[in-house]
């Protein structure tokens, strides 16, 4: 292994100064770091391969509680990377560019996205703005809107063409641990690459748990596979896989209430009615409960106290619970 040198240090600095970038750019930055150091030291560049250098930098970061994570973007299919804080402790709270109230808002948005019905992992802009009323210190509609815009422009959320918000690749990387521990029941993992799926497909048979990223699905089909890779073995030629992500809800639903997965629509209709109201009631309750805690110092993506979450989830994700029982 090459000696850890100024090449690595400069490379690491250039990664940190960007925080979130494509592997391709990272590779260029590594080339550049080699070039700069070689020129400065007047030596012939002795280059180790990019992956090895990246690995070495990653090894140096590990003990500090930082990690280099890579993830293929679900939309653009480009492999992105970020230097991620692996600990959700008090020190990590310092790392954010947002105010405590904005962070609390972001947390709420992450929650509605993760708990969104029909595995849509997205929230309409109207619902997202409405969510701001659950904050301990109020935001005006305009403030909520501009905060949401900031989340998008700073790369934490994605706003789709039809105006739904979903988690960005950056969020998926940086919040991976949080999402997996906080939303154990909601997080879906790709059957092929095992990373979190928020935009992709689901096996059409009701009880099958197979989920895939769009890009993984395409690769899988391109390899000539026609059936679900799990035990269910359903033929994907006969029935098209169901979308995961915003395509799972129709545009009409953006304005109205949430609906269920298409084939379960009828049985769930009644429950869908029920869904909206109790949820709001429970949120109002939470608002009061949360006030003292949140005004103290809300951490970036701070978890709600257990009972609050359970109270909300019992409404929001009844659908998922039902499904779990069926299994």
């Amino acid at each position, binding site marked *: 292994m090459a000696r850890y040198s100024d090449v690595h240090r400069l490379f690491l600095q250039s990664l940190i*100064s960007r925080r979130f970038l494509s592997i391709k750019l990272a590779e260029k930055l590594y080339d550049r770091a080699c070039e700069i150091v070689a020129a400065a030291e007047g030596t012939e560049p002795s280059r180790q391969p990019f992956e090895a250098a990246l690995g070495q930098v990653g090894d140096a970061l590990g003990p500090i509680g930082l990690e280099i994570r890579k993830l293929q973007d679900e939309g653009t299919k*480009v492999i992105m990377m970020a230097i991620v804080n692996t600990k*959700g402790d008090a020190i990590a709270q310092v790392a954010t560019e947002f105010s405590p109230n904005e962070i609390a808002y972001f947390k709420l948005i992450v929650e509605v996205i993760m708990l969104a019905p029909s595995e849509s992992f997205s929230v309409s802009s109207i619902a997202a703005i409405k969510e701001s009323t659950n904050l301990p210190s109020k935001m005006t509609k305009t403030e909520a809107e501009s905060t949401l815009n900031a989340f998008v*422009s700073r790369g934490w959320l994605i706003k789709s063409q039809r105006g739904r918000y979903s988690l960005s690749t950056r969020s998926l990387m940086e919040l991976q641990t949080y999402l997996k*521990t906080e939303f154990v029941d909601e997080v879906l993992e790709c059957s092929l690459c095992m990373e979190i799926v928020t935009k992709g497909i689901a096996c059409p048979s009701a009880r099958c748990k197979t989920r895939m990223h769009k890009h993984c699905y395409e690769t899988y089909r391109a390899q000539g596979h026609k059936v679900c890779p799990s035990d269910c073995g359903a033929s994907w030629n006969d029935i098209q896989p169901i979308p995961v992500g915003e395509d799972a809800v129709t545009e009409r639903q953006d304005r109205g209430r949430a609906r269920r997965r298409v084939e379960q629509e009828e049985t769930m209709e009644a429950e869908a009615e029920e869904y909206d109201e109790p949820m709001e009631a429970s949120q109002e309750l939470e608002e009061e409960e949360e006030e003292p805690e949140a005004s103290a110092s809300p951490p970036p993506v701070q978890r709600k106290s257990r009972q609050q979450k359970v109270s909300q989830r019992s409404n929001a994700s009844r659908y998922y619970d039902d499904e779990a029982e069926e299994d």
Partner: protein
Amino acid sequence: MAPRASQRFGQASQSQANGRRTQAATQKGYGGRRRAREATEEPEDEQEQQDPEEDDEDGEEGQGEGVSAEDKMIADLVRLALFTEYKHTPLRRDDINKKVLVNNTRSFRTVFAGAEKILKDTFGMELVPLQTAGHRDRLVLEEVADGEDTGVVKKKITAAGPRSWILRNCLPEPIIRAAAERDPLVAEAEEDDWALLSDDPLRPEHAPGTALAWQSADDVGLQGLMFVILSLVLVNGRSMPDPQLRSYLKKLGVHSTIPIVTASNKNITLDAFLSSLTKLGYLDRIRTHLPGLGTQAPATQAAGRGRRARGSDDVEEGDISYEWRWGPRAEAEVGEKRTAGFIADVYLKRREEVQEIEDSEEEEEEQPARKGRGRGKNDEVAERRREKQAKKEKERKEMERILKEVERAAGGNLSA
């Protein structure tokens, strides 16, 4: 193994957290476990309560086997330093005590040294102490008093120890310089990246293509204005009365009454800009008595806190007026010598640019002619080289002259 162990510490500390502060034993040299048991602290307890699963993460990180409490504190301090720098705020001793050391404040030295080593070895960065306002006041007074008894002052400072630091790149200067220069390949890859991301009003139109993306953290235009202000203050003998600064800025088209438009298309007033520079530690606003009354005991005012910087009209309140000086961050991050270099650069660069345009025009004219002649080429090249060298020599001398003058205008030795 490791996760379990640390979980146990969590529990132990939870049960003991209350009222154990008094008996916190902090001698050095304990084995990791014992130390962690005796010395874990509230924020950590919170973490344990909130995220019991988090511990498994630690284990996976390979941090596991017998990580001592001290190593953990060192790692925490490194992260704290990186994160506070990201926010552009100084790393404060109080925060280190509260968030990293907690009951182990006595291990400050060891932990700090450990963190410094990691920052240097892994990141190529160093922690630079920010001078307290008191220290800088003394510096000014000292100069007045002909620089006597510096020893005493120095002693005083080291006794108290710095209260805050900033993180600074400590890679060799040529590397840092090159890292701030544009590379077309990087720029191209970066613009490809940007095409994938959501629109960001803070993002400039073209990628800078520098190895270090320092532009993303700052508004480059505002940064330029800040350098101008720092330069003005420096060459005015290291301090400048508020009305004077405003009148200089007015000459440059920066008015107290007309808002400055930032890169993100926000309007900010000059006052707001100055107070943000004060908050970030680039500038200090000092309350002084009217010039006639002398500057006895200038009291540093915590500008930005409480009171807002005022408009030019109401700067004077009875016999009180304000003057601007460099803040601690400017000294640590920018430095007087570099600012002198910046001033010289601005003067010389403009001349150079004009020269370059002329040169390139000449070259274009000569190009076709040169191709025809084979012989005279060598002479010409030699002549050009000589010219260039003469020019360089002239520039170097000019640069030295400007630096010297800046130093004189500042009122004495420029600090690094």
